[in-house]
């Protein structure tokens, strides 16, 4: 019960209004308009250099915006110094004070605000992050995961309106990261404070956040619930950065009954019009690899009502849980297919002629002018472009 008492003040929405930051000629954050509802777990997701950390630092007051305003509820905090804002930060690699013990690290904010009796709140907070026994240790004596929890406790104890987390799990190994994701989500649910979480790890963002904003080149590409933006990406960047996608550029040949019909490479694809992000006639057809079914051509079965393509299997890797295929189409594009291992009969082999198909409701349509490689993993991209000459040869 003590835990739910952590929040006493009224939590307020965070508003960013036309927030812009330029470093010389480089625009890091470009006229960002954003409202983050009170009490939500919000993730700013994007590759390094997309402006997400700069945005966070402006909210914290560590960076001055070039233009725009930051409001917490009705209060404009744009001109306030960091120590005057009802905002606390969990820094990347924690920035715990090495000369103070854990207790004093956590008590730091309370003491600076002139609160005399810090013993009880600090002990409660250490209890919340399950580090009560470590109070008198120095940060250097703690493991990475423990330091991470101290950093969260040190910020949370101040009952900020907004808690900012800058890549908080980046320094942890994979197993610990998973654990801390669950832990952070639990803490957020318990304290009810708005968490704004900056990360480049899409899985982390989707696991923890209620709302994910995908950021690229200083702008928000798309914002919504994790399911929403995963299932219905509106830009090629989001389609590639958040999970993987197969993208086929084509032309609209008809729009009827809420369905858009697109022709590409002599094949016809149907997409629910609500899932097409453009009104133009040039549309990129997209589908996630796990939505696609692959069957040997001679035993394809009934494919009516599905979007269908033919190709040859050029790569098959069995991972136990699923098999990942690469299927080359007649025009040389390689489609990715993740196939769950439901039945051994479904398995197709390298070099097989196959039919790939998917339900139209799993298609999405993007603006035809999109850069189809936007948001792709750079290493993966280099690998693929490295492959292409070999294929030609």
């Amino acid at each position, binding site marked *: 019960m003590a835990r739910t008492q952590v929040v006493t003040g009224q939590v307020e929405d965070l508003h960013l209004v036309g927030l812009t930051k330029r470093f010389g000629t480089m625009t890091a954050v470009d006229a960002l308009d954003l409202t983050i509802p009170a009490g939500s777990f919000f993730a700013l997701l994007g590759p390094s250099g997309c402006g997400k950390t700069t945005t966070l630092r402006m909210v914290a007051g*560590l960076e001055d915006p070039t233009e725009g305003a930051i409001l917490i509820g009705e209060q404009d905090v744009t001109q306030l110094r960091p*120590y005057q804002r009802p905002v606390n*930060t969990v*820094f990347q690699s924690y*920035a715990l004070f090495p*000369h103070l013990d854990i207790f004093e690290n956590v008590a730091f904010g309370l003491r*600076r605000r002139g609160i005399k009796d810090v013993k009880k709140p600090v002990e409660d907070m250490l209890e919340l992050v399950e580090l009560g026994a470590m109070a008198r240790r120095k940060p*250097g004596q703690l493991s990475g995961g423990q330091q991470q929890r101290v950093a969260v406790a040190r910020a949370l104890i101040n009952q900020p309106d907004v808690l900012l987390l800058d890549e908080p799990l980046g320094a942890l190994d994979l197993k610990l990261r998973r654990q801390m994701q669950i832990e952070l989500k639990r803490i957020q649910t318990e304290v009810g404070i708005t968490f704004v979480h900056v990360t480049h790890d899409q899985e982390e963002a989707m696991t923890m956040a209620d709302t994910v904003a995908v950021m690229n080149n200083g702008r928000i590409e798309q914002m919504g619930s994790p399911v929403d933006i995963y299932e219905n990406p509106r830009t090629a960047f989001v389609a590639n950065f958040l999970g993987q996608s197969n993208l086929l550029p084509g032309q609209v040949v008809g729009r009827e009954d809420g369905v858009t019909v697109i022709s590409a490479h002599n094949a016809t694809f149907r997409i629910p019009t609500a899932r097409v992000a453009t009104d133009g006639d040039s549309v990129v057809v997209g589908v996630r690899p796990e939505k696609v079914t692959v069957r040997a051509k001679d035993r394809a079965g009934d494919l009516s009502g599905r979007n269908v393509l033919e190709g040859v299997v050029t790569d098959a890797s069995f991972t136990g849980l699923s098999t990942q295929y690469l299927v080359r189409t007649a025009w040389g594009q390689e489609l990715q297919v993740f196939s769950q291992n439901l039945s051994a009969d479904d398995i197709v082999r390298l070099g097989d002629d196959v039919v790939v198909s998917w339900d139209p409701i799993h298609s999405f349509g993007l603006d035809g002018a999109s850069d189809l490689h936007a948001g792709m993993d750079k290493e993966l991209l280099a690998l693929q472009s490295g492959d292409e000459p070999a294929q030609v040869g």
Partner: protein
Amino acid sequence: MPAVVPSAATAHGSDEATVRRSRRSTPYLLLAPGLGWLAVFFVVPLFASLATSLQVPLVEGDPDQGYTQGFAVQNYVNAITEYWPQFLKSFLYAGIATLLALCIAYPLAYFIAFHAGKWRNIMLILVVAPFFCSFLIRTYAWKTILADQSPVTQFLNALHLLPDDRILNTPLAVITGIAYNFLPFMTLPLYAALERIDFRLIEAGGDLYGSAWTTFRKVTFPLSLPGVVAGTLLTFIPAVGDFINAQLLGSVKDKMIGNVIDSQFRIVRDYPMASALSFLLMAATLTIVFLYIRRAGTDDLV
């Protein structure tokens, strides 16, 4: 196959033992030149000096006749009773000069560490630049700077800030001279300590409701303490024994213990007294440094 493996392993094992033996001796080989140097030029003179400090004159009352080895603890008693004011003055001047150097060097080191940007290396070179010129020449230059007719003195006089209407030949000149001469010894360790501080810690201080001043007091300064301790020791220890500044910049009344030892050796030729004074200076300095380090508690710092 199984027969080959063990024999290969034993051959390998004996090789390893040889390697291990030679590895164990490596540290001592590395230490040898330093230890040898210290033995010849530090330990031997130290004991020679200790022996000298206990010598007695061959002819009572006539030091010109030379000295013979004795066990005259009285030399130490004489040294203290006769020269305690100079001892006191040395520690006082050196202490004030160290504080003054700290007050000048800290902001300088802070600026170089956090705000100098691309000028950082140039500024560091400028800090060290005085070393390209001899200590003695620099102190002579300081004599000109502080002379009665110099702009500095005249300016301060115009403001009626100088009690004696002059700087040269006053304790003030000695103290400022010491502070100036040892400034790089203060600045460099401070810079090294400040430069190591993760700037995010200072940001975190601000984020956790510390104003700029509070964050400095509670975060930056404590984290720079190793540099403060190193800098003050590097300044204080040589400053206590210094005699150039008092000689060139001070009056006869401002003699420090270094001047006394110097004149006892070179002019009076009372070697036992000079040695006893040296030993007392060493003991007093060690005591002060020891207490200071315990007080500063640098062991607690990471």
